[in-house]
């Protein structure tokens, strides 16, 4: 600590468990466990014990032999005739005996208070109240000026969460102390040895003396002693705080150092062993209470998260896609991690709920996450800026993110967001400041409270919330995989049934047409052969023949229709004017007796399958001709024009029209809006039109009124020139 250029961290490297000296309020004997021979002693044995090391060792000899025989566990011993508190333990191949003067004055029995406290803890008590009660009891038992409950955060900064005292020392309630104040190896000692006492920070350390020539002053590990001499840095720290005596007791939860019960007095203050034991009991009772409370809280959170998870699963099961399922249950999704917003990126697109950045910003964020390889599974930060992502378009909405990468190959993400929470933290002295004075570092010389606003940070993500994100991610992955399997199975099934359908239609085309042909053929042969048939018989034969003919046409139309679904589309320039002209020529024979006024506009060229588009025009124009049969003159307008995103073609007539209520049926297979004796047809024509247009990526539409004509349109998206 005397060198220039070192800071407080250097005391983090100090080997504080082998100080080579003890505090003067106790004396130490180091014995060989084999023969209980004295190896080292502190220089103050005679001062504490009233006799020299050999003398006290002789007194203790029978007790030590019995202790050794019964297993060498840490124990208290008695030295008849000497008013001493004696503790012994075996560590690191040595028997270590600590001697302290026994309390001289009679003290209150702490038993009644401890019992009352234990009962209070066992009752239904709030954690904050339990902490305050413990601090108060510690002050009463120990007579220290002040007791603090000091809690470590995840980064080992300390936070004073409860306090009691007699008013001599200033209040530290709610102050924070930086992690460096209690360095890592000190925290390790606190974990192993829960209680230490410094009666007087101005003490002069008492060195160990070697009594064994062979071993000399080999280092003695004092981890488990009570009277170990402490680091001079710590003593300086105490003096700076204005406290000359201190005692601290560790609060361990599940083996982890949760915090400390820290006691201080302005003046030197010694606490006898029995009182320390009572204080230790208080700390252990408190630890149990804290542990139970935190386990209860974890369990409650677990139940709640499980319930939310189940709701999200149900929502995903209801939706076709996992991302829709989550977006549909937006409140639950946000509640799961107590986020203010969330964004979902999947191959289906982007969706966001609550308060989340826009798509581009989220994509930059996930890009950054994958480029930096920091999110293979789940990643959480409460400060994106500190993590290295300083894109205002994200951080102005959200400072903290919890990101799940659902799948690497498809770049699927689920990201939760939390907004900035400006917290004001009150530090016990400027945590960023190292005070130097003549080349020497003075830890925490200034104990003015120092306030720091924490910006660019969200509320931190709770471990349970990160766990919930992990679980949800696992469920999504499972669902995505299951869906993919289902799709693959479905595709295979479809392929199979498509093949079956093809085989079926092939067989129909061969086998169903033949009998109709036979019926027509033989009934016509019969008609020719029997010249003398009466009118009615001829009529019957005609009915037979017509029916079979109609059935044959139906089969042909159906085959054409089903074939259209499979046929590959040709793609070339198509002159619609020419197609319409050809269709009209083809119909000329049928309409030579009709009065039809045609108005055909100039039709824009398009691209597509010419033969199929001719079929479209043929069916639409034939329909117009058919349903204007009662009109003289009939009027048929054919036109086409470019519209937004494509071309629109139109066939309008003044025929019998249709009721818009049945419009939905117009383009269905076998749907007819007219009686077949009025207008012939198989009911497939418009279905065919729709299918052809849709295979070109277009759409069909119709408007009409009963007896007021009809207007059929079809839209083709303009395809780029190849």
């Amino acid at each position, binding site marked *: 600590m005397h060198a220039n250029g070192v800071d407080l961290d250097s005391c983090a490297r100090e080997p504080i468990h082998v100080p080579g000296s003890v505090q003067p309020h106790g004396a130490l004997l180091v014995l060989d466990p084999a023969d209980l021979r004295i190896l080292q002693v502190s220089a103050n044995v005679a001062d504490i014990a009233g006799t020299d090391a050999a003398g006290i060792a002789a007194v203790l000899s029978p007790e030590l032999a019995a202790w050794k025989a019964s297993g060498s566990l840490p124990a208290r011993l008695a030295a008849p005739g000497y008013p001493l508190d004696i503790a012994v333990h075996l560590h690191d191949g040595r028997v270590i005996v600590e001697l302290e003067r026994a309390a001289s004055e009679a003290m209150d029995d702490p038993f009644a208070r401890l019992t009352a406290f234990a009962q209070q803890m066992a009752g239904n008590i709030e954690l904050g109240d339990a902490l305050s009660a413990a601090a108060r009891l510690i002050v009463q038992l120990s007579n220290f000026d002040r007791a603090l409950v000091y809690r470590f955060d995840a980064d080992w900064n300390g936070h004073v969460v409860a306090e009691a005292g007699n008013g001599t020392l200033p209040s530290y309630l709610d102050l924070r102390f930086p992690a460096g104040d209690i360095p890592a190896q000190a925290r390790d000692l606190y974990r192993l040895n829960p209680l230490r006492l410094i009666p007087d920070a101005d003490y002069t350390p008492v060195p160990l003396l070697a009594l064994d020539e062979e071993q000399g002053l080999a280092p003695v590990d004092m981890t488990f002693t009570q009277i170990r001499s402490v680091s001079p840095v710590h003593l300086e720290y105490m003096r700076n705080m204005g406290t000359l005596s201190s005692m601290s007791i560790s609060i361990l939860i599940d083996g982890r150092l949760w915090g400390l019960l820290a006691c201080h007095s302005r003046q030197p203050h010694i606490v006898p062993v029995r009182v320390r034991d009572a204080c230790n009991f208080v700390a252990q009772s408190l630890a149990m209470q804290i542990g139970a409370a935190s386990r209860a809280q974890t369990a409650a959170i677990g139940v709640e998260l499980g319930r939310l998870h189940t709701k999200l699963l149900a929502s995903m099961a209801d939706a076709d896609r996992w991302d829709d399922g989550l977006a549909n249950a937006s409140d639950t999704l946000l509640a799961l991690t107590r986020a203010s917003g969330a964004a979902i990126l999947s191959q289906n697109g982007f969706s966001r709920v609550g308060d989340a950045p826009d798509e581009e910003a989220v994509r930059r964020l996930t890009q950054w996450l994958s480029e930096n390889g920091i999110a293979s599974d789940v990643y959480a930060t409460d400060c994106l800026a500190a993590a290295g992502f300083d894109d205002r378009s994200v951080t102005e909405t959200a400072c903290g993110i919890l990101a799940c990468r659902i799948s690497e190959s498809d770049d699927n993400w689920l990201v939760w967001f939390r907004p900035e929470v400006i917290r004001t933290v009150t530090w016990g002295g400027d945590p960023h400041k190292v005070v130097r004075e003549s080349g020497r570092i003075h830890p925490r010389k200034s104990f003015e409270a120092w306030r720091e606003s924490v910006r660019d940070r969200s509320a931190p993500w709770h471990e349970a919330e990160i766990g919930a994100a992990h679980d949800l991610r696992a469920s999504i992955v499972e669902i995505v995989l299951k869906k993919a399997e289902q799709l693959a199975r479905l595709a295979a099934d479809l392929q199979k049934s498509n093949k079956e359908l093809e085989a079926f239609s*092939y067989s129909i*085309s*061969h*086998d169903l*047409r*033949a009998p*109709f*042909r*036979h019926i*027509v*053929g*033989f009934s*016509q*042969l019969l008609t020719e052969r029997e010249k003398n048939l009466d009118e009615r018989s001829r009529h019957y034969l005609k009915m037979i*023949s017509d029916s*079979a*003919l109609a059935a*044959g*046409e139906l089969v*042909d139309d159906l*085959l054409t229709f089903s*074939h259209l679904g499979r*046929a590959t589309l040709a793609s070339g320039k198509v002159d619609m004017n020419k197609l319409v002209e050809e269709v009209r020529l083809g119909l000329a024979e049928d309409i030579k007796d009709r009065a039809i006024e045609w108005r055909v506009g100039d039709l824009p060229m398009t691209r597509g399958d010419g033969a199929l588009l001719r079929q479209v025009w043929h069916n639409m124009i034939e329909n117009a001709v058919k349903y204007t049969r009662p009109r003289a003159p009939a009027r048929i307008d054919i036109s086409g024009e470019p519209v937004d995103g494509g071309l629109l073609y139109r066939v309008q007539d003044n025929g019998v029209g249709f009721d818009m209520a049945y419009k939905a049926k117009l383009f269905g297979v076998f749907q007819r809006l007219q009686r077949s004796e009025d207008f012939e047809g198989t009911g497939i024509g418009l279905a065919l039109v729709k299918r052809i247009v849709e295979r070109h990526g277009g759409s069909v539409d119709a408007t009409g009124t009963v007896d007021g004509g009809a207007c059929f349109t079809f839209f083709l998206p303009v395809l780029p020139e190849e």
Partner: protein
Amino acid sequence: MSDLRPILLVEDNPRDLELTLTALEKCQIANDIIIARDGAEALDFLNQDGAFATREPGDPAVVLLDLKLPKVDGLEVLAKVKGDRNLRHIPIVMLTSSREEQDLVNSYELGVNAFVVKPVEFSQFFKAIQDLGVFWALLNEPPPKSRQRGGS
């Protein structure tokens, strides 16, 4: 017309057979009509094999071949005839109920001379058979070496 060669009609369906025969009869084609009821019989006739081992030599003027046939189907018969140096000059007209595009494509790839989808309407069917008969049995000139009297 002693050099009138026969027409080989390959048809398994008895009603189609009767209608086709009636049609051919009505257009007064004098050629003999030889009937095979499946693909195997048709090949036997063409190869002078099996039941036709002792027939008079000579090729038919035309084969009217149904597509769907028992044993050996129409496309197989077509493939065998067109793959045989000695037979491939014989005109083959595929007569079928099918409007399947694939059948049409396959037939032309195998070298069919004509492909006719049997119309449902009898007068059209009649007309089609008549045209076929007149064209292939009367008008069409076969290559010189096959001008031998065949059939009975």
